[in-house]
């Protein structure tokens, strides 16, 4: 690991200023993604501002929904009685991610901002536009990519976003609350937080340098059953090849794009009375087909249809 200096932020605004004013600085929360990438020399911050102990670690009731602190750990969020009662899709997404140990450290904000698990992003001997802009994308010619994006990818990058939690937050219509370097607070939908890769896959979100995620706002749960289903190489402790979150008539897909993917075509088809299979087909017929992703497209279609069917039998919050 390269050397860096470390400070523990005294309060949110001084954390924001410390990162905004220093181009080499990054926030550090649980560290489970950032420290891993620093050990691999993929992330190279020169200064870390620890925001893990800022007082944003609780759950509050607001307007029939909940406000979740950005520094709250994933395991405590999943165990919170109101979250279990109102948002089973979120609990299921959280507890299907990583392991018990990792969830005790991973935070709401850090989970949203975790970086891709693309194998070539991790392999520093290979070109990767996300890691080293302009160097090329090894995944395009790589061994088959079960983690590839099938929606919204570009010639510069076909990586997908790996968070499970973010898929549930997207289906629930959640937003993030941030503190900007000017000291103002703003909110933006989780759905609009991450960007598609375009020509700049190294720019992953619409956050300004130094902008701190202070909370996630969950609106009241939608009517209807909630489901989270995930497919992966083993039964637990692995990132998804694909996942589906359903909440009433809303559907979001995970590990299929550079961001959690709100499946608008599925939702429109369901609203128009289509069956689960027809609705899934409405979305998947728009996927970017290549000679290596036929299996993934078929898998996502079946998984989405099955999750929609299952949601009809699940309890409403």
């Amino acid at each position, binding site marked *: *690991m390269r*050397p*860096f*200096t*470390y400070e*523990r932020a005294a309060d949110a605004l001084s954390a924001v200023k410390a990162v905004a004013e220093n181009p080499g600085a990054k926030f*550090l929360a*649980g*560290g*489970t993604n950032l*420290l*891993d990438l620093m*050990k691999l020399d993929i992330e190279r911050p020169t200064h*870390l501002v*620890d925001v*893990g102990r800022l007082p944003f670690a609780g759950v509050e009731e607001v307007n029939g929904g909940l406000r979740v602190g950005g520094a709250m750990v994933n*395991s405590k969020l*999943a*165990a919170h*009685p109101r979250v*279990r*009662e109102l948002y*089973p899709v979120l*609990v*299921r997404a959280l*507890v*299907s991610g*990583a*392991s*018990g*140990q*990792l969830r*005790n*450290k991973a935070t709401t904000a850090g989970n949203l901002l975790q970086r891709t698990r693309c194998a070539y992003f991790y392999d520093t001997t290979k070109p990767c536009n996300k890691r080293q802009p302009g160097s090329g994308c090894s995944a395009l010619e790589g061994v088959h990519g079960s983690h590839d994006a099938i929606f919204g990818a570009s010639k510069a990058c076909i990586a997908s976003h790996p968070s499970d939690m973010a898929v549930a937050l997207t289906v629930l219509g959640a937003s993030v609350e941030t503190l900007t370097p000017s000291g103002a607070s703003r909110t933006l939908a989780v759905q609009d937080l991450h960007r598609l890769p375009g020509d700049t896959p190294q720019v992953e979100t619409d956050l300004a340098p130094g902008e701190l995620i202070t909370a996630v706002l969950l609106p009241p749960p939608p009517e209807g059953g909630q489901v989270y289903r995930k497919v992966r190489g083993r*039964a*637990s*402790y692995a990132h998804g090849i694909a996942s589906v979150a359903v909440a009433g008539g809303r559907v979001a897909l995970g590990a299929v794009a550079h961001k959690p993917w709100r499946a608008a075509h599925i939702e429109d088809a369901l609203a128009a009375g289509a069956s689960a299979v027809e609705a899934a087909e409405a979305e998947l017929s728009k996927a970017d087909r290549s000679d290596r992703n036929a299996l993934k497209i078929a898998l996502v279609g079946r998984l989405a249809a099955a999750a929609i069917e299952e949601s009809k039998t699940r*309890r409403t919050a």
Partner: protein
Amino acid sequence: MKTTITVNGQARTLDVDSRTTLLDALREHLGLIGSKKGCDHGQCGACTVLVNGARINSCLSLLVMHDGDQVTTIEGLGTAENLHPVQQAFLENDAFQCGYCTPGQICSAVGMLQEAADGWPSQVMEDVAALVDLTEAEIRERMSGNICRCSAYPQIVAAIRSVAGDAA
């Protein structure tokens, strides 16, 4: 950077490079070599310790992040004469072969049993708002963050079940 942690009940102050992980601090600076380094990337669980009672991977945490924290390692759970119930159960059930994953398995199991007692949900529950029943499937899921290269899993599950059964 100066950092004070309480390890197994004893306050310890270290002044080390900010890059030092909690795992390396325990092993290289405090001589507590029970916690193991399997992967150093959060992928195996061999480095699991308890911080303020919660199990974490000590390889993916920096010592400087833990100023003021209470850390319990395998050395602090029990003594040779007075083993922790989970240690005793691992012995009785022959729940290891090479033993490399064992300190992590035991610390993880201690943390996991508390999580289950506190009613924390898991992905194998039919309803995530229901009460926890520590079945074999639940134990396997909740312990999935600990890999055993010798594949002593059936005995590990049996050991943990015996402790969970006693507590119930």
